[in-house]
């Protein structure tokens, strides 16, 4: 969708919903958005700046993501959400300053309809529910600058179509589920701009988007959300890649006194006899060391179907998160094997959710 149309959409929604704004006034809090029209229309944004110095790549500084989030209620049963993302708006590297890599896209654009107290129907473009990371992938919300390949390469990060999602109590815990059908090839002509391995100059590097497919995720969360265990299933075809893929994923999250342990794994099979399997797993530890600082350790092993050797990548980092919506990160990554997929080097970022 052209940017001009998105501006008109935002203005139209703002004007419509202003009429329904209640009297309750809310003060602004960092990371929780700004009410444009009371609680009926809320705007927010997140900004991520990134610098990296990686082997085989030019040193680079980039305004990585500038995202505008807009959401609100359309009556008692309908809710809309949009995220417009401008990525690589400004990139400084060995070639000087560039703006030609800039890409403006609707990262998410959907309507939610409450079918019952615990079940909702989602229509539009949404984050693919595979694992936990993809659902909270914004830089201010994750501990590392780099994103594990396990959370992004084997499936498209977004799906367009319909999704059913809900939450059910189970003893004192809850079971959260989502199931979706994707028809990106018909519904989202803008798909295909983002690459499977973004920001890297390696080949092959096909588009990261579905043609069509479907899947589901089931997650267990305990009473205080300190434990989450998820299972994801999907079957789909990808743009510019032959064959149908079947994916199985598992994810784990555990937190205690600000310590966090998380991990994900995926296994993807190709239905063609000549098709190669793709698999990967990572484990990440975020250890609080005081003053809002966390020491980060992460290891990932990944076998991409398009490359002959597996990658082993270890990252050690320091993340300063004085408040949850704000983070400053420094990371040293050392890779072995198919190193081009995640080159060794230094990465740092500043991110804020407004």
């Amino acid at each position, binding site marked *: 969708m052209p940017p001009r149309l998105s501006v008109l959409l935002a203005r139209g929604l703002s004007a419509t919903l202003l009429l329904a704004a209640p009297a309750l006034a809310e003060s602004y809090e960092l990371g929780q958005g700004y009410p444009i029209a009371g609680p009926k229309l809320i705007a927010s944004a997140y900004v991520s700046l990134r610098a990296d110095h990686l082997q085989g790549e030019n040193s680079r500084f980039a305004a990585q993501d500038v995202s505008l*989030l807009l959401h609100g209620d359309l009556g008692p049963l309908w809710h809309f959400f949009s995220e417009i993302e401008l990525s690589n708006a400004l990139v400084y590297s060995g070639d000087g300053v560039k703006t030609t890599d800039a890409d403006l896209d609707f990262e998410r654009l959907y309507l939610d309809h409450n079918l019952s107290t615990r079940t909702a129907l989602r229509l539009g473009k949404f984050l693919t529910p595979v694992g936990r990371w993809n659902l909270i992938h914004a830089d201010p919300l994750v501990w590392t600058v780099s994103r594990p390949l396990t959370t992004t390469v084997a499936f498209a990060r977004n799906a367009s179509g319909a999704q059913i999602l809900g939450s059910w109590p189970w003893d004192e815990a809850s079971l959260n589920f989502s199931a979706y059908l994707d028809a990106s090839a018909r519904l989202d002509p803008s798909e295909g701009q983002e690459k499977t391995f973004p920001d890297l100059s390696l080949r092959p590097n096909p588009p990261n988007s579905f043609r069509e497919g479907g899947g589901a995720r089931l997650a267990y969360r305990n009473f*205080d959300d300190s434990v989450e265990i998820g299972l994801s299933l999907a079957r789909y075809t990808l743009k510019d890649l032959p064959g149908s893929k079947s994916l199985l994923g598992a994810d784990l999250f555990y937190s205690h006194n600000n310590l966090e342990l998380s991990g994900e794994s995926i296994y993807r099979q190709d239905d063609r006899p000549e098709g190669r399997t793709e698999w990967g797993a990572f484990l990440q530890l975020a250890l609080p060391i005081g003053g809002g600082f966390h020491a980060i350790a992460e290891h990932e092993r990944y076998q991409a179907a398009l490359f002959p050797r597996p990658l082993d990548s270890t990252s050690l980092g320091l993340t300063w998160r004085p408040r*949850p919506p704000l983070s400053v990160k420094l990371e040293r990554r050392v890779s072995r094997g198919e190193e081009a997929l995640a080159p060794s080097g230094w990465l740092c970022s500043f991110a804020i959710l407004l």
Partner: protein
Amino acid sequence: MFLRHPAVTVLSRSSIGRDCLILAFVVGTAGGAPAEDGIAVITGPIRPAIAFNRANLQDIFLKRIQVDDDGHPLQALNLPADDPLREAFSIEVLGRRPGAMQRYWTEQYFHGVSPPFVVRSPEAMVRYVAETRGAVGYLPQCQVDARVQVVAHLSVPADLASRLRHVCE
């Protein structure tokens, strides 16, 4: 399994975290015998069509439930984060202190879900709940009046009960 119109249900929690507040959670109808101390969960004169058991109450305050069984919107309300009543309610119902919820709400905000509104005082809570269909709040039991109805009751440990009595005197 939910009880849509429970008579009186008593649930107990042995411990929550290191600080181990031991509370009893009593769900009853508005006509149930009220306890003198403790926290009353309140709605306006039109009671939302949902059972106010602990699982539902948790999900209402986590915004995982946003409408009742009849499709009317629900609106959870909180007292300020440093209010001892808010802290007791948060620990019992959500399993965490208010300060520990910030990460949860930051992640939820990324999905377009904002935290419950905050009202400045118990009186503001009563007024907002009484005038807003679907609003769900909480008060010291002794501050409940005829403008609102009690849909659940949480008993509290002796030290907090003493502080709540002081508030009511």
